[in-house]
C-alpha cells in the first residue's frame, strides 16, 4: 500500500485536505484571538448563536408554520383527497417575502433603535406602516394571480366540457 493511500485510510481524505483545513484554522485562530479580545463570552455566544440561529430556531419555526399551512390547504381539497395542493403557494410566497423583509429590517420596523431619529434627523415611525403595506400588497398581488389563474382554469374546463358535448 502506498504512503498516500495509507494516509487516506487513516485520515479519511487526501493530505491536501488536511493542509487546507489547517491553513484555514491557523488563520481563524489568528483573527479569532483578536475577535475574542474584550467581551470573550459575549462574542462566543454571538458566534455560536449565529451558527445555530437558523438551523435550530428559524428552521423549525418556519417549517412547522409551512406544514400547518399545507395542512390547511389539504383539508380544503376535500373529496377524500389528502395530497397537498399547490395553492398553498399563494400564501407561502408572499409570507416568505414579507418574512425576509422583517427578518432583515426588524430593528427599524419594530422601533428597537431609540437613538435613530436623534442621530439621523429622520422619522422612526414610518417603518412598521410601510412594512405592513408592503405585506398587504404582496398578499393582494398573490390574490390577483390566484383569481386570474382560477378563472382561466374554469374557462378551460367549461370549454373542454362544451367541446365534449
Amino acid at each position, binding site marked *: 500500500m502506498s504512503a498516500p*493511500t495509507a494516509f*487516506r*485510510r*487513516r*485520515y*479519511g*481524505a*487526501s493530505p491536501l*485536505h*488536511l493542509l*487546507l*483545513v489547517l*491553513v*484555514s*484554522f*491557523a*488563520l*481563524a485562530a*489568528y*483573527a479569532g484571538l*483578536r*475577535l475574542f479580545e*474584550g*467581551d470573550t463570552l*459575549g*462574542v462566543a455566544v*454571538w*458566534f*455560536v*448563536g*449565529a*451558527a445555530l440561529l*437558523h*438551523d435550530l430556531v428559524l*428552521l423549525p419555526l418556519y417549517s412547522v408554520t409551512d406544514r400547518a399551512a399545507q395542512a390547511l390547504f389539504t383539508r380544503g381539497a376535500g373529496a377524500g383527497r389528502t*395530497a397537498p395542493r399547490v395553492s*398553498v*403557494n399563494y400564501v*407561502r*410566497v408572499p409570507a*416568505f*417575502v414579507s418574512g*425576509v*423583509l422583517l*427578518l*432583515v*429590517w426588524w430593528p*427599524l420596523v419594530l422601533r428597537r*433603535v431609540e*437613538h*435613530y431619529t*436623534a*442621530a*439621523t*434627523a*429622520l422619522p422612526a415611525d*414610518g417603518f412598521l406602516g410601510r*412594512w405592513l403595506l*408592503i405585506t398587504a400588497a*404582496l398578499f393582494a398581488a398573490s390574490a390577483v394571480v390566484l383569481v386570474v389563474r382560477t378563472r382561466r382554469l374554469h374557462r378551460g374546463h367549461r370549454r373542454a366540457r362544451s367541446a365534449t358535448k
Partner: protein
Amino acid sequence: MGTSGIGRGQADDVPPPKGGGPAKGEGPAKGEGPAKGEGPAKPAAPPTAGPSPKEAAGAGRTPPPGPARPEFWRSPLRGPWLTAVFGLVLLFGITVVFVTGLLSYAAYDPDLAAVNDQTPDKGWLGFYLFPWPTSPYWLYRLTQGVHVTLGIVLVPVLLAKLWSVIPKLFEWPPVRSVSHALERLSLLLLVGGAGFEFVTGILNVQLHYIFPGSFYTLHFYGAWVFIGAFVVHVAFRLPRALRAVRAGPGEPPAGSEEAVGLVSPRPAAPTISRRGALAMVGLGSLALLVVTAGQSIGGWWRQTALLAPHGRDPGSGPNGFQINKTAASVGIRPSDVGPAWRLTVRGQGRQVDLTYGQLLAMAQHESALPIACVEGWSTPDQRWGGVRLTDLAALVGLGVDTPPVLVESVQRGGSFRSAVLGDNQVRDGRSLLAVRVNGAVLSADHGYPARVIVAGAPGVHNTKWVTRLTFGEPA
C-alpha cells in the same frame, strides 16, 4: 466516480445509509467503503467498539430516531442541484462582499495614523492596505453601496442554502473520520462566521448597536475567521456543485452517491417545483433589493428604499440631504461653533488662528462630491464651497508637497471626532474645508462652521465642526 479532487475519498462523499433501516442501509455505504480503500466505516467504528467489528460498525451507523434519519426530512426539493445553485450564487456574492469589505477597511487608511485605526491589533490582516485614492471620486460610494446592498440581498439565499443542507447537520454517525471531524469544525466557522457577519452588519446599518463590542473589531476580525472556512468549503465543494448544476434539477435518487445525503428517501408530495423554490428565494432577494438600494442611489430613487434606514430625506433645501450624526446627538453646543470659534492651522512649528470671517475671506473653490457612509447609504454629488486644504497648508508654509493633515472636530466624545487625511487626499484640488453647500451656509447638522470634504473618502473622514488642522507626518 464523481468526487472532487481534494475531497475525494473523504468519508463525507459516501452517502448516509439509504432508507434508514439497518438491512437496507448497510449494503452500499458499508460494503463499498473499505473495498475502495476509503474506509469510512473503519474510522467510524471506534466509538462503539464491540466484540464483532461488523456488528459494532452496524450499530454505530443506525441513526437514532429523529433528524439523524434521512427519512425524517420530507421535502421533495432538497438535492445537490438546488444546494449547488444557492452555493454558486453565494460563492459569487460573498466574494464580492468580502472584497468590497476589504476595500472599505483600506478606505479608512488605518495605517496612516492611530486615530484612523479601529483595529490596532490587526497585524498581518492589514497586509494589503494601500493609500485610498481620491479618483474616481465616487469609488467609496460604489464599493460600500455594493457591500451593504449585496449583503442584504444575499440574506434569503444564505437562508435557503442553510435550509437545503439541514439533513447534513444531523448526519449519522456525527463523526466518521478525522478528516470529517475537521471538516465539521470548519463548517462551524463557516456557518457561525457567515451568520455573525450578516447579523453584525445588518444591525450596524440600522444603528442597533446590541452586539458585544466595537462594530469594526467584530465585523473585521469576524470576516477573517469566516473567510478561511469559506475558501476551504469552496475548494472541497465547488467541483461537486458544478457537476450537480450541469446534471440539472432532476435530482439523483435518494441514497445514491450523487445525492450526497441531501435527497429525501421518503419525500412528501411536492407543492412547488425546484425552479419554483428558486424563484421564491429570488423574489425575496429582489424585494430586499427594491426596499434597500434607493438609499445608496439617492435622488428620486431614495423614496423607493421603503425599509432602509436612509430611505427618506431629513429635510428640503440646500442642507436637506442625509445626515450621519446630528450636531445634537454628538453634543455640539452653540458656544462651540459661535463667534468664539476659531480655526487653528498648525505645521512646521507655526500656528495660525482664523476667525470665521477670515476663513470666508480666503479664496473660495467649489467641488461637487457625494457623502458615502460605511453604512451603505450615500448622497448624489453636493455642490460644496470652501477653502482648499492646500491653501490652508500654505498659511504655515506647506503649500507645495503638502504633507498629511490631522483634522480635529470640536466634538468632545464619540468616535471619528478626528481623522488623518493622506497627502494624496490633501493635495487633491477638490479637497476642501467647506463652509457652504449647494449655495447655502452649512447647517449645524452638516458641520457648521466648517467641515472637510474629500473626494472618494468614507463619510466619517469628512470631519464636521472642524476646529484644528495639523499638517505634518502624523505622530
